[in-house]
């Protein structure tokens, strides 16, 4: 996006200032309650469920999710909702009903510590090191993205954005520890919802309502190349490809814009990846562990599931609205693209004319055009220019418009293009504050999870055991500062070496993919041994690396995108490759863990595993009425989720 920066007025700045004043104020108000390391890392286990529940949601809702979900909404349509209705919701309910009793009941202070209690030090060390490194890079990536965004949108200096935003997070986490992170996350949750809701409302009104959006998207689905959504000019989808969640999926990978099959979606995303994330990631589980009692801990993911179910309205719908507006002539809107500057246009025009004269092929034309203009192009539209003799006789102006029209969509710019279009002074400040809030909630979540895992699972476990509580409390505060500095380092790293960052994210995908198999077997099969779990995890991770090295998705070259050893299988899309990889890694980890557990001796007795494994834990006596039990609430939520799936079938 090279459009002119937006100017904020005094009103917008005062909204932003008020928000910053309150988040820092919460940190300072909580400072006097911080006395021990348990207060700082675990909130003294004293927070009610509605607070931990909203924090659970907010910690996961980083700025990248807001930007990315709107992007996917435009790119893939309503099928993006599967990340919520097939992915997150069932996993969150499973966490509440089946897993939380063991996390909370075992008195473990972190997820890696649970692994130590259940298995041994090896699984804990592997999990805590990979988790610690991962959280730093995750917060670095989103920090870089935010600073870049503010720089492009408002013209603020990249470095100042980076340091000021981190400093605010540092200040309130340092003062109030996990409690302060959780409390501000609740405030941020409301800020995000109330800041973006009017944008969606205005967008829907402008587009003419849901009925019109559906109608326009049907037109888009039958001519996707016109809108640069696909690069094959002959490609068409059924009219409901963007507005039905399941029908296009049942038609196979070629019938839906995601290029995905039913098995990969339901097993890969719905089971392996979602359960792996929501049920084992300490970033979210930590929020539930801070709840005041077992009931509150189990209700935490259930409280979160209610708004989560309707989040597609807030984050995915805007992308669909943007696409519908693009398909409505007279609205003066199109999906954002990078703009070819006046300085580059003559070279681009000359390049395409040259290609027509020399009868160059499509690949070399695209290459030379890209190097002349600095943009990427939709090959369908370039081919049209190339094959049409009128390209030579057209005026420079007409050709410039057609070349610009062929530039690929910048989907990540969708949400901000809507904010720009609909927000007057005042509302603009609110929407930007919401963006900032979503970023800060994510970063604070990463930092608090990092300082706990570092202090309890690495520092206390391996470096300095048997120190006083004051010492660990001090270490927690020091490592909060270190964690933020490391995130800033990771952000600069991300801004300089995009490729290295892609590789790091890939490695973490490998580590995460098999994780749920280990927890599932650990919690529900008492025979699982420490050796089985550890070797299973390592094999699962190696299996995903191997899978990646031997498969590739259509349109990619061997390299970072996979297939560099040998190409055994060409998958229809990146997403399909990702989901199949997870399914494969899970299966390998599961099988290896089972086989090795049967072959090795158990090191923990039934008595030691009490409270850690389902079959060895006495059933908790339920004190609440049947309708207030997590099991019942979970079933109700699941039914609502199924109904949502049917409505948008």
């Amino acid at each position, binding site marked *: 996006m090279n459009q002119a920066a937006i100017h904020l007025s005094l*009103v917008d700045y*005062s*909204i932003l200032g*008020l*928000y910053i004043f*309150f988040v820092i*104020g*919460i940190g300072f*108000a*909580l400072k*006097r*309650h911080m006395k021990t390391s348990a207060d700082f890392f675990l*909130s*003294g286990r*004293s*927070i*009610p469920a509605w*607070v931990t529940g909203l924090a659970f949601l907010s910690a996961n809702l980083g700025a990248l999710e807001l930007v990315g979900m709107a992007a996917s909404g435009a790119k893939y349509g309503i099928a993006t909702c599967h990340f919520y209705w097939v992915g997150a919701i069932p996993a969150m309910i499973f966490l509440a009903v089946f897993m939380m009793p063991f996390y909370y009941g075992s008195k473990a202070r972190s997820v890696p510590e649970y692994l130590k209690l259940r298995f041994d030090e090896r699984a804990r060390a592997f999990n805590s090191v990979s988790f610690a490194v991962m959280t730093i890079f995750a917060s670095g990536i989103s920090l870089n993205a935010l600073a870049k965004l503010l720089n492009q949108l408002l013209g603020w200096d990249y470095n100042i954005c980076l340091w000021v935003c981190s400093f605010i997070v540092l200040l309130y986490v340092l003062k109030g520890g996990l*409690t302060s992170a959780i*409390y501000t996350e*609740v*405030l941020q949750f*409301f800020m995000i919802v*109330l800041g973006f809701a*009017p944008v969606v409302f*205005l967008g829907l*009104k*402008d587009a003419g309502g849901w009925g019109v959006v559906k109608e326009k998207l049907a037109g888009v689905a039958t001519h996707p190349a016109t809108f640069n959504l696909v690069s094959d000019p002959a490609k068409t989808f059924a009219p409901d490809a963007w507005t039905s969640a399941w029908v296009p999926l049942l038609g196979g990978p070629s019938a839906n814009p995601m290029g995905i099959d039913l098995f990969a979606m339901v097993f890969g995303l719905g089971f392996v990846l979602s359960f792996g994330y929501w049920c084992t990631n300490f970033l979210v589980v930590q929020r539930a562990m801070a709840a005041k009692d077992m009931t509150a801990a189990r209700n935490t993911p259930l409280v979160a599931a209610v708004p989560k179910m309707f989040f597609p309205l807030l984050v995915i719908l805007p992308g669909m609205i943007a696409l519908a507006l693009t398909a409505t002539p007279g609205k*003066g809107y199109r999906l954002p693209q990078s703009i070819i500057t006046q300085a580059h246009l003559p070279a681009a025009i000359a390049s395409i004319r040259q290609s027509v004269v020399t009868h160059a092929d499509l690949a070399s034309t695209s290459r030379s055009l890209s190097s002349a203009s600095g943009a990427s192009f939709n090959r369908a539209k370039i081919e049209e220019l190339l094959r049409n003799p009128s390209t030579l006789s057209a005026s420079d102006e007409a050709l410039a418009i057609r070349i610009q029209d062929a530039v690929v969509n910048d989907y990540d710019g969708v949400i901000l293009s809507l904010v720009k*279009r*609909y*927000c*007057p*002074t*005042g*509302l603009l400040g*609110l929407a930007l504050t919401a963006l900032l809030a979503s970023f800060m909630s994510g970063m604070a979540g990463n930092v608090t999870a990092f300082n706990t895992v570092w202090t309890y699972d690495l520092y206390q476990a391996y470096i300095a055991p048997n120190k006083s509580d004051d010492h660990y409390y001090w270490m927690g505060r020091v490592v909060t500062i270190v964690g933020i500095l490391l995130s800033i380092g990771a952000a600069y790293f991300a801004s300089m070496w995009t490729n290295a960052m892609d590789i790091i994210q890939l490695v973490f995908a490998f580590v995460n993919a098999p994780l749920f198999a280990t927890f599932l077997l650990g919690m529900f099969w008492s025979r699982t041994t420490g050796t089985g779990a550890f070797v299973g995890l390592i094999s699962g991770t190696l299996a995903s690396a191997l899978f990646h090295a031997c498969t590739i998705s259509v349109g990619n070259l061997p390299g970072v995108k996979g297939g560099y050893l040998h190409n055994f299988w060409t998958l229809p899309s990146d997403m399909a490759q990702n989901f199949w990889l997870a399914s494969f890694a899970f299966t390998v980890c599961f099988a290896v863990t089972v086989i090795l557990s049967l072959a090795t001796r158990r090191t923990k007795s039934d008595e030691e595993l009490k409270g850690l494994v389902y079959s060895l834990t006495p059933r908790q006596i339920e004190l609440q009425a049947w309708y207030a039990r997590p099991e019942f609430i979970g079933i109700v939520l699941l039914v609502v989720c199924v109904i949502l799936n049917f409505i948008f079938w």
Partner: protein
Amino acid sequence: MGLDIRFPIGMMFTLLGLILLGTGLFTDANAALRITPAININLIWGAVLFLFGALMWGSAVFGKNK
């Protein structure tokens, strides 16, 4: 945990609501945008935020459970 989070949330949104209401009442900020039909979104949304903030604040003052 010493602090009822409904207080700061209530206060913040009440104030944000007032700012937006003021902007909606005293300026014609919408004129710069091409929104049809023209609605004074600052006024409407300011009222929504104010009500939400007041509700939160009120429930913290009158509610006993934290």
